[in-house]
């Protein structure tokens, strides 16, 4: 291996690592706020990528139907719960309309704009907007009523959610793979190493999003409220913050982050209905690296995962996934030796 190959591998590793970092942060965020280990995080990646792929061939994306299915299910659930708890009709109508308004607007905009052939950037925004409401809808449908369940129960439920979403993905997108056009086609030569514009876009977008999350959690009231729910849920409810709202917000962020990752990788990787699991799992490894608790730790872990993967694939491309997942074992050993007690609580 000479310098050029090593730097190409390193660039590749950092680019992938940046994407894993996004997913890892989403996983850490969701876990901190709701105690859900969200295995299905990778599915949002697929939904984002698929929406953009179908939109860029000027088709109505199947995620419109998926969003519709989730919305109908959530409305039915709201109705059933409302009737069982004898909610007054006015309040029931209000909560249903509040739940339905954003998804319906997004579906309508997509419907109208597909024949107009908007530019690629607009399509990317539409894809994000289509996937974003799926997060809160999933939270309402599945996790809201399990607020007091154990972490293990929530994990098992997440595995179920993952299978359901992959199944729906197969029905809606079919078994064939999709790719999207690249946002930036040009490529530069830096010190003999080819650097693609897309790789730079990935790194810039990731850094911007991480910066944005940092700003949200440090300087805004909303972010402070999310942290408060993560630290002490009862304490947060006592000051009027709804744990449910915080759960919905964290799932929405997770969906946006997932979809954005999908949009960023879909030009360089062929995406199938079930690609998300493996990508999400690598984000999960990075999150474990940080003990599911620290954002900077998750970032470091993700870059490490990206590098291990790219160098691993150079030495043995058939085993690259095994190498990445095998890396969890020393990490867990290291964490249990040095942080074991802290994690008990």
């Amino acid at each position: 291996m000479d310098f050029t190959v090593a730097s190409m591998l390193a660039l590749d590793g950092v680019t992938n690592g940046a994407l894993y970092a996004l997913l890892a942060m989403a996983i850490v965020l969701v876990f901190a706020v709701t105690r859900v280990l969200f295995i299905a995080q990778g599915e949002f990646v697929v939904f984002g990528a698929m929406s953009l792929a179908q939109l860029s061939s000027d088709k109505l994306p199947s995620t419109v139907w998926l969003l519709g299915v989730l919305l109908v299910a959530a409305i039915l659930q709201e109705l059933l719960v409302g009737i069982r708890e004898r909610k007054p009709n006015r309040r029931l109508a209000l909560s249903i309309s509040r739940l339905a308004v954003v998804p319906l607007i997004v579906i309508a905009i997509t419907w109208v704009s597909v024949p107009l052939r908007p530019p690629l950037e607009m399509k990317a925004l539409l894809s994000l907007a289509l996937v974003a409401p799926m997060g809160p809808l999933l939270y309402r449908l599945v996790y809201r009523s399990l607020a007091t369940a154990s972490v293990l129960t929530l994990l098992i439920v997440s595995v179920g959610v993952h299978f359901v979403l992959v199944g729906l993905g197969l029905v809606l997108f079919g078994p064939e793979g999709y790719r999207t056009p690249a946002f930036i086609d040009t490529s530069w030569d830096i010190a003999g190493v080819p650097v693609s514009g897309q790789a730079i876009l990935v790194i810039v977008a990731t850094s911007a999003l991480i910066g944005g999350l940092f700003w949200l959690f440090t300087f805004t009231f909303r972010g402070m409220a999310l942290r408060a729910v993560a630290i002490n849920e009862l304490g947060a409810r006592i000051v009027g913050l709804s744990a449910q709202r915080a759960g919905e917000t964290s799932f929405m962020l997770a969906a946006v982050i997932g979809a954005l990752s999908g949009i960023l990788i879909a030009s360089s990787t062929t995406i199938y209905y079930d690609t998300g699991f493996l990508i999400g799992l690598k984000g999960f490894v990075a999150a474990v690296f940080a003990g599911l608790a620290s954002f900077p730790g998750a970032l470091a872990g993700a870059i490490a995962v990206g590098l291990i993967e790219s160098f691993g694939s150079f030495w043995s491309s058939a085993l690259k996934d095994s190498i990445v997942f095998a890396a969890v074992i020393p990490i867990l050993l290291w964490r249990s030796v040095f942080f074991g007690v802290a994690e008990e609580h």
Partner: protein
Amino acid sequence: MMPALLQVDRLTSGYGKVPVLEELSLRAAAGNIVSVLGPNGAGKSTLLNALGGILRSTGTVRFDGEDISHIPVEERLMRGIALVPEKRELFGAMTVEENLLLGGYRPRQLGVRAWRAGLDSIFELFPRLKERRPQRAGTLSGGERQMLAIGRALMSRPKLLLLDEPSLGLAPLIVQDIMRAVSELSERGLTVLLVEQNARAALRISTYGYVLEMGRFVAEGDARQLMNDERLIESYLGSSNSQAMVVH
């Protein structure tokens, strides 16, 4: 009789299937401090948590003329009922200032422009908190945590403050400080429902009191009248008597 800010009728609550409270009725008029006294395990905290909306209960709770029996804690707060629970439930990893700001969620949500100004009046009431402003809540002493919990509740600009055992585990001088602060707040128009084991300290600042024993009210009356009822203090509140003497 003046219309009550809080009117509770036949409230029953408990943990699981075991009722701790049996059909309690109670009222608190606006601007008053009403205390609920009783020994350990009488159900005082259960009553307060049920009124705050943390615990499920049956019976009716009317607040400010509206039936709030079935709404959860976060919505009760939005109507103006602030709860300071026995365990305080602070945000330990966040600073004193952040804790207080989070308490300001209600006025912020209601569109009060100057909601942050609440900080200054809290610091005026508890100057200790101002010194501890950038410190993490988890590192505070017991008395400071108590002040922070009350301060955080006050940031919501409540109409009714539900205060659980403010004297618990605190040195007598600090208890005095906190009781004085509570009494000051009520002079400014806040209604307080105060749950206390330390009967004398509580009655001294209250207008009315209830005595809770095994989930039932065994006595009620004007605070002064209760305080002078030696037999009552002896039989129900004896354990806190010696503790209360120290406060003098």
